[in-house]
């Protein structure tokens, strides 16, 4: 029982970061109906920039996170202009494949500039774990979960309470009606795309700071986790992305504990396949948001 609780706590912590990655996909998918395959690579570029700032300029945690966010948004702007803005409405497969090509491009640039296997990222916290009634809690993981939660709350507030959020939800639920109200879906889509890249950068920075390192494989990892978490919660649903992220974290940590590390991802993918099968994979962009 204690194990289950401990695993669930650990799972929720990492699940917060997964949820941010999933939201990155959901926000773009909701407004643009497009899958951004370069999402992981965008996050990777940000993290490499953060690590470079840390290594070359001696920047600390906040500086590195700022560099990560800035470069992730800049890379996002490049991807948005090249792969999404320029392609007509009907060419969603082309936009996806084009973003894949840019994924490869960004990763190659990252590997050329920084060809080492691992780079150090400033640690979130080096405080010792807190022990309580047989449970342990890592302060850095708690901080990660708290920041992720804060970011999600801010996102929720933005969507519900601001003019931009209102417009974004209008575009997501009825794009034609939104245009008739004077909202420009392309502009909202671009802004949402960049916001998603920022959230992805934040999630990446949190995870890299907990691991205090980053490798070239992070981009692919982030993309897969985000995609799986988004789909678990229902493709395109905002609360679904949050629930999917948390669920993925909890499932993974319990599967790892009870079945072994090699089964962790097997359980996650098996469940994903089953969820798609039972829910018939309905796409529910931004419902109940």
């Amino acid at each position: 029982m204690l194990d289950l609780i401990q695993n669930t706590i650990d799972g929720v912590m990492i699940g917060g970061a997964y949820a941010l990655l999933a939201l990155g996909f959901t926000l773009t998918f909701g407004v643009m109906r497009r899958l951004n395959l370069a999402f992981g690579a965008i996050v990777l570029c940000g993290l490499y920039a953060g690590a470079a700032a840390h290594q070359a300029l001696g920047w600390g945690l906040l500086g590195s996170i700022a560099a990560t966010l800035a470069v992730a948004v800049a890379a996002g702007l490049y991807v948005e202009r090249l792969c999404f803005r320029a392609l007509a409405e009907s060419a969603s497969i082309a936009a996806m494949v084009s973003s894949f090509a840019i994924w490869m491009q960004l990763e190659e640039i990252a590997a050329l500039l920084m060809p080492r296997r691992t780079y150090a990222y400033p640690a979130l916290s080096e405080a010792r774990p807190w022990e309580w009634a047989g449970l342990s809690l890592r302060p850095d993981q708690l901080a990660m979960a708290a920041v992720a939660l804060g970011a999600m709350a801010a996102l929720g507030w933005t969507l519900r309470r601001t003019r931009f959020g209102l417009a974004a939800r209008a575009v997501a639920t009825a794009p034609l009606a939104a245009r008739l109200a004077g909202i420009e879906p392309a502009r909202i889509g671009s802004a949402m795309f960049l916001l998603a890249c920022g959230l992805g950068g934040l999630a990446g920075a949190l995870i890299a700071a907990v691991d205090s390192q980053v490798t070239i494989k992070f981009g692919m990892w982030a993309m897969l986790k985000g995609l799986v978490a988004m789909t678990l919660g229902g493709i395109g649903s905002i609360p679904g992305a949050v629930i999917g992220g948390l669920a993925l974290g909890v499932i993974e940590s319990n599967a790892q504990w009870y079945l072994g590390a090699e089964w962790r991802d097997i359980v996650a993918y098996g469940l994903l396949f089953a969820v798609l099968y039972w829910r018939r994979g309905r796409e529910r962009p931004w419902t109940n948001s």
Partner: protein
Amino acid sequence: MDEFLIGVLSNIGLMSLLALSAWLLLVVGEISFGQQAFFALGAYAAGIATALYGWPLPLGLFAGVVVGALAGFAVAIPTMRLTGLAFAIATLAFAELMRLLLQLWVFQREVDGERLGPNAVEGFRGVRWVYDHDLSALGYLGVIWGIVVVVLAALFLCERSRIGLACRAVGADAELAEAQGLPAARLKILVATVAGGLAALGGGLYVHLATYVEPQHFSIMLGVHALAYGLIGGLGTALGPILGVVLDIGLLEALQEIARYRMIVFGGAVAVLLILRPRGLLDEALVRRLTRGKP
């Protein structure tokens, strides 16, 4: 011929089979991120047949194709009711499951005093039929391209058949095709089966060239490349995916000066190309214009 060139040409042929597999599904309107799983199944099945049981290569390849096609069929049945992104992610989930299970799978036999066979993350080494039978690199290149040409010829024949036309109709608009009495779901399952077999054929050929495979060969990276080649080359003809592979692996790899920057050049070029031609270089409209007037 230069060995490096033979190697590159062999890779183009192998990748073409995988790209054709992804392209077939694109033709019926489905995006698959998971064709690498069938490539893996073909590689493991064919390798087991020749290396562990001493089957001749053709029989081993055939075994691989059967396994791949059966798997393609088995996966198609539950996934065909999904559409769009959900289908793509389901194929991804399947392929990753496959890869992770291969990481656990140990199946070894003693052959000539050596333990051979799939060995979890260590992979499957010692598939040396080609070397044991002293088939030259050039000879094996001939085998690969002989098969690619046969496959292409078969696809061209299909393209002009009733099934080919029906597949195009389903790809253009599945609901409309169904309303016209075409069995869209069954056609898609048929295509997924053929695509599974085709990818497995590529995998079987690959393992005998490389002499070894390991599960991480078959990550999503491989599958999405295959998918991208299909779209870049063009959806209009089976030559499209081959053109896509040649452009990437062939042209840029062969120019060694820029090989290090290959993905930077290629990635950017693809993005620009797709803005100009969202259905690829050899898209349906171009193919129609080129073939117009011919019998």
